[in-house]
């Protein structure tokens, strides 16, 4: 999409100058704080916990999706199925112990997702078509092996995953750690710089001799690990798994990435932004819930928020290019 644009100013320099988007986000945050102050029980420890737990449920996957989107592969529609399969593998291998079960789940998620990354990277295949195909394959194989039934663990080694150190669910710490890791990779490592270049201008990345396909595979592998962790937490939380456990995770994760202001065309964005997007979405949903609005209104608000951010980000980057 941004094939033939000139050099783009470095991300940090642009973030310092406030513009319409930053002002808009600030206005939203102020409005949320005011609305929160007027809402009973919004500013409470229990509610903060609920917000962060909700953010973690999509945020972990969204962090992985951020890297893939920065590298230029718009979206994956196989996320929910992959998370479900990982949850099934994780529960079915509980008798091997927690570490082994997590490791197997991670392996499974990384393998499935990195394979899609390889198809996208090496064949330059369309990520949407590839991931729809992968979603069918993963879902089909999962139903085939499980016989379409619910997977229950023989022993429950996963109880530790549902613990709440310092009052916060473990998944929240994992989300924060993954955000820090992804942010470090994106900003401080060669792989990170290559991801931005690949998303910004794939032709230039290829011309510069970057191992484009392998960089893509690396991003997708990390994405797979993030999906797998989400699947593991889903399994531990639900204590059983079906092929439909992933639910609406595929699009929820993309919504969080987009709400954070990462551009769908690739080349821009950060893990911190995605963390912000995930938290923002869960704050708004939580606020609406506390004020007694239905799930429908919560979804509507989430969609409008994503719409606003997507347009604002696009208008800003289009202006920056002129």
């Amino acid at each position, binding site marked *: *999409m941004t094939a033939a644009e000139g050099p783009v100013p470095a991300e940090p320099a642009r973030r310092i100058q406030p513009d319409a988007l930053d002002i808009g986000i600030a206005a939203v945050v102020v409005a949320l704080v005011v609305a929160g102050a007027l809402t009973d029980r919004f500013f409470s420890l229990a509610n903060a916990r609920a917000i962060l737990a909700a953010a973690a449920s999509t945020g972990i996957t969204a962090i992985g999706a951020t890297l893939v989107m920065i590298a230029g592969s*718009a*979206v994956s*529609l196989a996320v929910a199925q992959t998370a479900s399969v990982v949850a099934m593998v994780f529960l079915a291998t509980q008798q091997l112990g927690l570490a082994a079960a997590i490791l197997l789940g991670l392996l499974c998620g990384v393998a499935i997702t990195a394979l899609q990354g390889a*198809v996208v990277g*090496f*064949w*330059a*295949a*369309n990520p*949407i*078509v*590839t991931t*729809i*195909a*992968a*979603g*069918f*394959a993963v*879902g*089909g*194989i999962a*139903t*085939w092996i499980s016989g*379409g039934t619910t997977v229950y663990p023989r022993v429950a080694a996963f109880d530790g995953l549902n613990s709440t150190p310092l009052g916060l669910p473990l998944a929240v710490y994992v989300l924060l750690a993954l955000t820090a890791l992804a942010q470090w990779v994106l900003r401080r490592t060669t792989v990170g710089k290559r991801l931005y270049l690949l998303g910004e201008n794939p032709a230039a990345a290829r011309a510069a001799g970057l191992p484009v396909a392998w960089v893509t595979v690396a991003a997708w592998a990390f994405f797979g690990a993030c999906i797998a962790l989400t699947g593991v937490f889903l399994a531990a939380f639900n204590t059983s798994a079906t092929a439909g456990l992933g639910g*609406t995770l*595929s*699009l929820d994760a*993309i*919504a969080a990435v*987009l709400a954070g202001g990462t551009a*769908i*065309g690739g080349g821009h964005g950060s893990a911190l932004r995605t963390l912000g997007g995930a938290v923002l979405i869960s704050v708004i949903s939580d606020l609406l819930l506390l004020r007694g609005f*239905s*799930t*429908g*209104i*919560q*979804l*509507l*608000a*989430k*969609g*409008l928020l*994503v*719409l606003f951010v*997507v*347009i604002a980000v*696009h*208008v800003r980057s*289009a202006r920056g290019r002129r």
Partner: protein
Amino acid sequence: MSAGQAPAGQARRRAGLAAAGRLTSRPEILVPAVSLLLVLAAFLCTPLVSGNGLTAFDLFNTLQGLAQLGLLALGLGITMIAGEFDLSVAGTYAAGGMIAVQAGQSSAVLGVLAAVGAGAAIGAAQGGLVAAVRIPSLPVTLATYIALLGLASAMSGGLSVTYANTAATLALDRPVAVIFSLPSLITLAAFAIAALVLGGTRLGREVRAVGGDRRASRVAGVRVERTLVGLFTASGALAALGGALLSYSRASANPDPGLQPLILATVACLVGGVSLAGGRGLPAGLLAGLLAVALLGQIDAMTALPDYYTELLYAALLLVIVAVDAPGLRRGLDRLRAGAANRRGPLAR
């Protein structure tokens, strides 16, 4: 086909080769044709598995399945040809079904009109946005998809709403000319209109130009913005009509149909030879792809095979399409083919 004075058999073979060459270079015909033939063959073989012969009722059911998905797939397909991916059709589909049921309790026609009007307005707003800001449609329509699901759910308090007008439901599901029904006839008519408009008018050429190379088509004087607004309006109206007919025929509107309709409509488009990259695709191919998907669904129902067979089949079908469409893979194959052709001499191509 300049066969010249070569013997007839050779001429025919060369003509055949040339036609095959044209077909492989035209995936918008080859992909749907091959897929439909394969699925048709499988459909004709179902009596071997199920033990029951094929009846006209099976065809009726296939066409009912086609009608459930058809208008959604058509709306998605025409935007895809123009290089956009309109995820929101699935939201409009749900919202349209909900609006039709709630506005059409007394008069079915009124409900359909309300749904189609709302769908067209939603589509026009999105098209206007995409055209004015020149933003890729995927993120915009993902956001509106979520918002529209929310709207449909808010309209019904998150619950399914039953449609009490049983006369309308019965009328929609009554067979017409043995194998057709009102929804399937409407769907086929919509495809016929789309084929006429896209195949025979300047607008059709402009749609493909917009999808093929937007910058060049703008330079060449194509009214890109108008075309986009028109396409999104049409896709919104089609999706809403599809949703309305579906809820009438099911006698209830579901606020959250999930991702399945969208995914299946996308599969129908892709199997129909429409490229997500834009600029490629024909309504006739799209109809063939849709028929293939509907037949697969019917095969599934007739043979009572487990669901995962269909899922794995879709995966295999889509993988073939991935391979056909992948530029990286094609470059590699072209190199191989060029090498082989050089060894055989120029005539063999």
